[in-house]
């Protein structure tokens, strides 16, 4: 029983950064912008988040640092891809390359340092309940926040007028522009939201997942988050399922390594990446009756004046 509880806790912890980053990217993509720089924004968020927490001693300020760093990175993307109408794929790649270098530069002074990781909720008697107690009432704030974030995004996209306009920009920017909506401004906000989420997701890693910073610690999570958005068919509800499934694969392979299954550890570590490829293939194959992606995703828009 304790093992099951430990596994569920670990799965939630491993899934949370994926869920936060993917939720942000989902909003970005729903507005019609493909920002491939999630990995870069995450890793800068991780470095800045750790720096903030180490300098101030506050996890909350660390998280804010991560959010601000991710947003600033996304603004660079917005300037290029929206302001200068540069190819979004190439700009996203550039953002990741830049982010990896910047995070190394920012984080260099903090390698080897430790902080007290984010506190976990504790409500006497509720948290002490067997099996579900710690899972439901003993998480850190990020886990609860990530779930609130997904619900908030779902509500925004499907229940508000602003969300409808944002989706309209993603499906047909020419029509949205003709109706008088400021397509580029809306997209800039969507990109910034994606950047803020990616920065927070990156900051989660050194603030709550492991209490130290190592260069390259995002290890492709930003790219997996991008794959999750495809997996979810651009719907927040399915994103939750996808993120937790992925967290489960990551944790199970770690446990399998611990149990000494006769497979080399590198093969087990490769599982989450291979799973991403397989899932992408299966999903794309299943979706023969037309794509569910936002119709204008990744296309350049320069308004006529």
């Amino acid at each position, binding site marked *: 029983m304790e093992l099951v509880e430990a596994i569920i806790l670990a799965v939630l912890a491993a899934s949370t950064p994926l869920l936060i980053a993917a939720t942000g990217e989902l909003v970005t993509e729903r507005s019609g912008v493909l920002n491939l720089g999630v990995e870069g924004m995450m890793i800068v968020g991780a470095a800045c988040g750790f720096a903030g927490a180490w300098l101030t001693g506050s996890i909350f300020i660390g998280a804010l640092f991560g959010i601000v760093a991710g947003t600033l990175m996304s603004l660079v993307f917005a300037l290029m891809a929206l302001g*200068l109408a540069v190819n979004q794929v190439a700009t996203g790649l550039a953002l990741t*390359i830049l982010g990896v*270098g910047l995070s190394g*530069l920012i984080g*260099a002074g903090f390698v080897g340092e430790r902080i007290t990781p984010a506190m976990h909720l504790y409500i006497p008697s509720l948290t002490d309940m067997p099996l579900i107690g710690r899972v439901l009432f003993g998480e850190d704030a990020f886990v609860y926040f990530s779930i609130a974030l997904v619900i908030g995004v779902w509500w925004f996209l499907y229940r508000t007028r602003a969300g409808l306009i944002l989706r309209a920009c993603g499906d047909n920017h020419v029509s949205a522009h003709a109706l008088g909506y400021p397509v580029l401004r809306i997209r800039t906000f969507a990109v910034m939201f994606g950047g803020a989420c990616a920065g927070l997701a990156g900051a989660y890693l050194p603030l709550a997942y492991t209490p130290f910073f190592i260069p390259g610690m995002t290890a492709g999570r930003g790219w997996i988050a991008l794959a999750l958005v495809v997996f979810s068919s651009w719907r927040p509800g399915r994103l939750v399922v996808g993120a937790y499934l992925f967290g489960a694969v990551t944790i199970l392979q770690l446990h399998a390594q611990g149990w000494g299954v006769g497979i080399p550890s590198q093969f087990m570590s490769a599982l989450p990446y291979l799973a*991403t490829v397989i899932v992408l293939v299966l*999903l794309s194959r299943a979706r023969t009756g037309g794509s569910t992606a936002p119709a204008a995703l990744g296309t350049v828009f320069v308004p006529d004046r």
Partner: protein
Amino acid sequence: MQLVLEKRVERSNTIALVSPLIAIGLTIVTMIILFAILGKNPLLALHAYFIAPLTDGYSLQEIAVKATPLVMIAIGLSLCYLANAWNIGAEGQFLIGAVAGSWIAVKTQGTDAGAWVLPVMLVLAAAAGALYALIPAICKVKFGASEILTSLMLVYVADLFLDYLVRGPWRDPHGFNFPTTAEFDPVATVPLLIEGGRLHLGSIIALLVVAAAAILLGRTIKGFEIRVVGAAPRAARFGGFNANQLIILTFAVSGALAGLAGIIEVAGPVGHLQPGISPGYGFTAIIVAFLGRLNPLGILIAGLFLALTFIGGEQAQIAMKIPLDVTKVFQGILLFYVLACDSLILYRFKLVFPNRQVTRGTG
């Protein structure tokens, strides 16, 4: 008053020529600011980065050695990008090529295998790189899965596979438990061009690849098809060009070139297989491809330039204790400026005054 983009009637050829130079200029200005923030003398740092490596023969050879994989990979990637196929997993194809070629080297180690070893290694590495690149290409063509994400995921897989081999079955028994194979035999090593120097045969192969790509793109129907499919997919369909077939082809070629670059690096400057054989060549090559305007000759120049930043970065680290990550930042910023300047080929800035009263006719 507002600054907006406006599409040019015709692409500007002047800007197409000078835009990489503007981009490099802007990058250097940004670097001066960055060096100043880091508390280093910007002029000395720039000298260490861009001038010092050009002043001695050893560094010049080292630049050519570093440029070799960059140019080979970037040529392949440029074919993909021209055809609008987004292979960003060249790093993985590089590693798999290195692994496949090393297999022969490891298996023939200590035997009296003859001169056939190196050619077989090169062919096998190219074949393995091509096959590895075909995975995302086929997933894209058959199932519509995003080649960007699948090719990138396979980088991590290749990295872990190499790690497994050099820590497990291929580890040098006399290597003090370091994760590395034994040094390759002389027959499994890329020959040096100058005795006692660094320059090796791989650089000649890279030059041949550049020439072949220039002929392919400029003088053959296939090259024309690649460019049309990327630039005008609708026109290409009317022309009867098969876009899917070209995705497969360009991925296979770029994978083969990356794989070849991988084994040349391992059997050349490195001399054995170990983790970390690539300081991100597969990703830096993306920058090389764009900085070189997806043009073979341009890529050759861009490859040499980025190799200069690698060597300069190392010298700046030794001489001025500037962190190596500055080189990555430099490369990332350079790619941004290149892309931004390229935008000005198709668009131009225009000032508009949206608040000015529009005079309406009274009729």
